[in-house]
């Protein structure tokens, strides 16, 4: 337990937290409550009239097959993105831990993709894998693999997952490298003397001891995959082909901003909010219990 700081002045502590509270209130609670309020309204397309309709918007959303499809797409997309980005980052971090010469340079290079904006990252991947002009797409075709993310939903999903995961690898890599460094070397040596070979050492010692890092990244990556990947999807597939890459966030945007169904869109964002809160709560409640903090 860290010692409690006692302020002699009653007002000062509130003043100190006030800026943070103000930001949270203005940029989070206010828009969130606006969304909740709007989700109970039905507006005409020009925004001139609005009618209070209780939970009609939610009923509409939940009975829409497009919305259920979007839920499924989001689940596939988020789980794949989080898994791929974390697995690749962990692999690279373990490898980087063995690099002795040029370690700093290697790490610096690994961190660069994080500086690329999501939309730009999406465009990069879009060009690389564009069926007609993409250099990597041509490579795939010459290997005899049929590749067409513009027509094939699975290909499109692979493309957006790759782009989204690629961008997050750097971030995960940084944390995994730090996590690996925090594991005392003597433990690895003790395990080696105890007869555990490299793979065994990884799964029985290193991986369990990395659990706090992995857990943290799981939460961060889930939130990332749910929200921050809008730019990538918007730039690469626009939710298509059909609705095969239309995630919940993208659908909020297309229903609200493109189709001007403000009430429906607001209802969707409220549902999304509930999903994220529930997911994070579940992660903390159930996964964290299995995490060993050294």
């Amino acid at each position, binding site marked *: 337990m860290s010692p409690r700081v006692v302020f002699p002045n009653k007002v000062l502590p509130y003043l100190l937290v006030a800026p943070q509270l103000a930001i949270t209130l203005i940029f989070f609670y206010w828009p969130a409550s606006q969304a909740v309020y709007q989700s109970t309204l039905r507006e005409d397309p020009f925004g001139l009239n609005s009618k209070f309709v209780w939970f009609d918007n939610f009923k509409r959303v939940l009975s829409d097959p497009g919305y259920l499809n979007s839920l499924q797409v989001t689940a596939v997309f988020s789980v794949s993105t989080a898994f791929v980005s974390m697995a690749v980052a962990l692999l690279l971090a373990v490898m980087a831990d063995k690099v002795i010469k040029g370690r700093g340079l290697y790490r610096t290079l690994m961190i660069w993709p994080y500086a690329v904006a999501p939309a730009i990252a999406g465009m990069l991947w879009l060009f690389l894998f564009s069926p007609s002009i993409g250099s990597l797409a041509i490579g795939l075709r010459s290997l005899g693999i049929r590749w067409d993310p513009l027509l094939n939903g699975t290909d499109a999903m692979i493309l957006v997952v790759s782009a989204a995961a690629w961008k997050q690898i750097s971030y995960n890599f940084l944390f995994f490298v730090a996590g690996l460094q925090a594991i005392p070397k003597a*433990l690895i040596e003790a395990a080696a003397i105890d007869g555990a070979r490299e793979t065994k050492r990884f799964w029985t010692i290193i991986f369990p001891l990395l659990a706090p890092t992995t857990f943290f990244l799981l939460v961060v990556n889930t939130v990332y995959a749910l929200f921050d990947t809008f730019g990538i999807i918007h730039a690469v597939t626009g939710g298509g082909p059909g609705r095969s890459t239309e995630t919940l966030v993208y659908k909020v945007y297309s229903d609200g901003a493109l189709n001007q169904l403000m009430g429906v869109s607001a209802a969707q964002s409220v549902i999304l909010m509930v999903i994220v809160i529930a997911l994070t709560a579940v992660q903390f409640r159930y996964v964290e219990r299995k995490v060993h903090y050294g």
Partner: protein
Amino acid sequence: MATVDLKDVRKVYAGGVEAVKGVSIAIPDKALCVLVGPSGCGKSTLLRMIAGLETISSGEVSIDGKVVNTVGPTERDIAMVFQNYALYPHMKVYDNMAYGLRNRGTPKDEIDRRVRDTAKTLELAHLLDRRPRELSGGQRQRVAMGRAIVRNPKVFLFDEPLSNLDAKLRGQMRVEIKNLQRSLGVTSVYVTHDQLEAMTLADVLVVMNGGLVEQAGAPLDIYEKPASTFVASFIGAPPMNLIALAGNALPEGTKLVSPVPPSAATLGFRPEDVELADAAHDAADGMDLEAQVEAVEPVGAESFLYSATGGGRIVVRVPGRAIAQPGDRLRVLVPADKLHWFDQAGKRVG
């Protein structure tokens, strides 16, 4: 049940630093060999080379007659107790001890039997379900010992295993380690910087300095006949008194009845090898020294008199309560057979 042989073992690190500069030691079966020396003398590096945790730059390390230079730590069949114990924090005590056996594919019921037997020997039976962070320092130390013992390896390696314990516990564990090692009869290499630990534990004592072996042998032989001024001042507490001879001249207030060996540059004597004489009494042989007491340290069973002489400060050990006070003048007699002589390079003469 194995011998450990080191032949001209060297370690040069990537930066060019030579940590071990050619060490040869033969450790007989079932012996406890203690490597002792100041920090940076290469003792830990040497131990890690025996463990297989450091590569060997040149020379040969053999375990049980087989050269193991290229054998990894996994296959050497050794067990090591680390300074900070290196217990697996996410495993219970039971699993910490069972880990090595599981990795070697020991049957489950045998693992269970061996872990429980070892836990009983070390009085750990009630702690098997705890995690390392729920244990005290002494208990962690025992678990680390248990993890090493349970595997029944060819060789035990100890890397300053007691340095994180308080003095009382350290004394207790020292005796226990000695007994365990003797009853199990496993060849052991033990690294420490504590000369008391080294003296009390060792069958074979190896004093290291600057990457080289200064002296190796039975602890008491080394105590009685230190091969160099380094060993003389490292082994024994308080250390041997050393008085430099300027050329062949003796410092003021010092008389020698015995002849000085030709190449001697330093003479030494143990604090306990002295006789305090009154003015009338003369030395039959050996040395006769005038000293003035500067400080008195009573430790109970004996007292140490820190005294100034013409040749520098010396320590005199007297039994029981000190008879002298700071400021008193002493006449210190050292018999000839208790004098040690060292040459210019610090090597023993005669």
